[in-house]
């Protein structure tokens, strides 16, 4: 337990110090979402209808941005070798790394989403719905991305391959995230139905992600 806390604290510290890039994802999110009103034009009704989808797409792309740092940096400086020889199960160690990654890149997106909802003419109820679905859905993005990060860990400049690998796997999360937001705003489906499926997807990825990532890391070393 001490070991896992130490890993969490270290990764959080690294993220907020120089070169950690904790806020890059939020800035990217901000820019992507700000560009949309310029591209679509000042059609407020259209913006409000597209709003949840735009916020979700922006969050998806922003959470991809930092994924290649999740394990690759530890691989480059030799830390991953030591993590593999630790007495902590590798599955738990990568879970904690993914948790630290979500706290520094995913959670800020959830916090920024209501702010950006203003730019897209979303009313408070719609903004709240998007924020709640992002809170439930972004951990799934990180933990699915963890598998991709483990698969591409030994590749230099594996970032693009990582995006190509991970994006198709995030389609269900995107579908149910946007569906739940729209259900809360326009109906007719009750919010709970797609939202429960979104939560289920997150719970599944919380289990499968670390196990698959640990297998990929062990295979990659063979």
């Amino acid at each position: 337990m001490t070991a896992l806390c130490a890993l969490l604290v270290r990764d959080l510290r690294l993220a907020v110090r120089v070169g950690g890039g904790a806020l890059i994802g939020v800035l990217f999110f901000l820019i992507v979402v700000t560009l949309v009103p310029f591209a679509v034009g000042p059609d407020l009704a259209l913006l409000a209808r597209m709003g949840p989808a735009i916020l979700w797409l922006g969050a998806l792309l922003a959470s991809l941005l930092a994924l290649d740092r999740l394990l690759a940096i530890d691989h480059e400086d030799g830390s991953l070798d030591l993590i593999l020889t630790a007495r902590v199960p590798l599955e738990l160690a990568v879970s904690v790394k993914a948790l630290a990654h979500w706290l520094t890149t995913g959670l800020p997106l959830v916090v920024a989403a209501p702010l950006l909802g203003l730019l897209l003419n979303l009313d408070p109820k719609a903004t709240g719905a998007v924020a709640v679905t992002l809170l439930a859905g972004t951990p799934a993005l990180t933990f699915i991305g963890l598998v991709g990060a483990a698969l591409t860990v030994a590749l230099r400049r594996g970032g693009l391959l990582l995006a190509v690998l991970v994006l198709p796997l995030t389609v269900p999360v995107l579908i149910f995230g946007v569906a739940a937001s729209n259900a809360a705003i326009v109906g007719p489906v009750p919010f709970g139905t797609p939202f429960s499926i979104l939560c289920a997807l997150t719970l599944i990825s919380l289990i499968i992600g670390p196990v698959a990532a640990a297998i990929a890391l062990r295979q990659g070393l063979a």
Partner: protein
Amino acid sequence: MSLRARAGGPQMMRLVGSDLACVRGGREVFRGVAFTVGAGEALLVTGPNGAGKSSLLRLVAGLVQPQQGRIELEGCDLELTIGEQAHYLGHQDALKPSLSVRENLGFWAAFLGGDAQKGDAALAAVGLNRLAHVPAIYLSAGQRRRLAVARLIAIERPIWLLDEPASTLDGAGQAMLTELMRAHLAGRGLILAASHGPIGLEGAQELRLGQQPDQRTQL
């Protein structure tokens, strides 16, 4: 192939590798390598570049799977793999540039199950106690290696796997490392070191790799 250890008394710790073969990237690096290292003994792995010195150490640490053969650790905790009882000091020093010297060591001590109280003593032993608050990015290559060596002292593990441990150290640093290795051997530890030159340990066995070029066939 079992990396799990067999039972025995604590004084009987013995690391035995038999008939080991290693393949990296489709090329056979070595074959038929065998060694035995007992408690308080050191094994110096030598050989030309590409002979597989680093691969052998990674193999013992469990970071690479052997093509054939087995490595067994006799007389130790049955629940732990060899890698979990070994320190692996590779070419990279596993330091984070934005963390301070003390934070780097403190993290590994906590994560690898060491004693956080020993951190400062370990820093003093490698001569870095005055740099404890300096971010690791400002350290020279030799100082980085000293900090990596401090990890060996701050966390107690019976097996040391050292890959070119002295490569970036100055004369004083090499003497310091030799002293630490002697102390580790005196405490019934095991050392496997890959090196081109002598490491200053008397009575160390030598395992020379890459002497049979006819065996190094393409797969």
